[in-house]
């Protein structure tokens, strides 16, 4: 009799475990769906940029305005931060709290410097009189790149919050799930940046 009870308890336990894993997987899948809809948002901004890229209204065009080495540095910094975010997930998987914190701090620092470079670029353009009001091309450029920058800002906030979570609570299953989602978000932003780098900066430089 007692064996049967133990067996039943074990089954209930494993059932709960599987239900929990499935719930986590469902949540992560839901987040993935959100990211894909975010892709559609960026796609519409890319479409606007593609249509308006030559409408400079007498203002500077892409090849005149953008500095390629500057864009390359931004790209490398963001790519490295994507990598260090992956290392944070890896450490979280091994439950190394201190290493997770370390990689989060590195990711945050790289992300913040990327954002700083982007804002500095915006500042320089606006100071030269080439703000979003200058031409259709500049409007679409500012909206596209600033939307990405806004996502980066939210991502930085999220990294800060998760660091506090890891510090205060350690890596529980809930925290682990959120770290996975955060890393998906951060990698996704790097994926979007590939296309900004190619379409806005590189195509701009070769005057497509």
């Amino acid at each position, binding site marked *: 009799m007692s064996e049967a009870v133990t067996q039943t308890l074990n089954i209930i336990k494993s059932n709960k475990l599987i239900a929990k894993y499935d719930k986590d997987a469902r949540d992560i*899948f839901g987040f993935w769906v959100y990211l894909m809809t975010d*892709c559609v948002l960026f*796609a519409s901004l890319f*479409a606007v940029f593609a249509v308006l890229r030559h409408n400079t209204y007498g203002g500077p065009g892409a090849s005149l305005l953008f500095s390629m080495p500057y864009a390359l540095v931004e790209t490398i910094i963001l790519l490295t931060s994507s990598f260090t975010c992956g*290392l944070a997930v*890896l450490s979280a*998987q091994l439950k190394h709290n201190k290493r997770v914190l370390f990689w989060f701090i590195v990711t945050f620092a790289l992300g913040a410097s990327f954002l700083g470079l982007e804002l500095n670029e915006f500042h320089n353009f606006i100071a030269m009189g080439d703000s979003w009001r200058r031409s259709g091309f500049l409007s679409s450029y500012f909206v596209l790149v600033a939307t990405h920058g806004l996502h980066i800002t939210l991502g930085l906030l999220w990294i800060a919050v998760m660091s506090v979570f890891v510090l205060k609570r350690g890596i529980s299953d809930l925290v682990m799930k959120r770290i996975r989602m955060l890393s*998906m978000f951060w990698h996704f932003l790097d994926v979007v940046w590939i296309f900004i780098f190619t379409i806005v900066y590189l195509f701009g430089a*070769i005057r497509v």
Partner: protein
Amino acid sequence: MSQINHQPVDILVSTHQPEQVTLRGYVIGFGGSIVMTITAYLFARYGMLNKPVMVALLAFLALAQFTLQLVYFLHLGREFSPRLKLLVTVFMMIIVFILVGGSIWIMNNLDGRMMGTKVMIKYMNSQDGL
């Protein structure tokens, strides 16, 4: 009592266990992305190719890097049987293709039908300034 079969119910996304990530995957993704980014940069900066070839090359490098990061950073294609993540991703790509391709197509077409600025000014002058 002994014949209780454990049956997991309501499995929309079945993973059995959370996906494990590896250092190797991240290193491959990072190294490959760096190489492709710098190759694209060097070609755009110093490459002496004609424009269509250059556009095709840069687009190819971007798409290759996109795929690399989807696989090694976002772990696409490592899920179990109902591959919903992949399904949603392919659907997203179709939408993006229609959205971007369609916008460029339609707007180019409209642009081709519009009067040029100079023709417009001439026309307006002929119409007494309108």
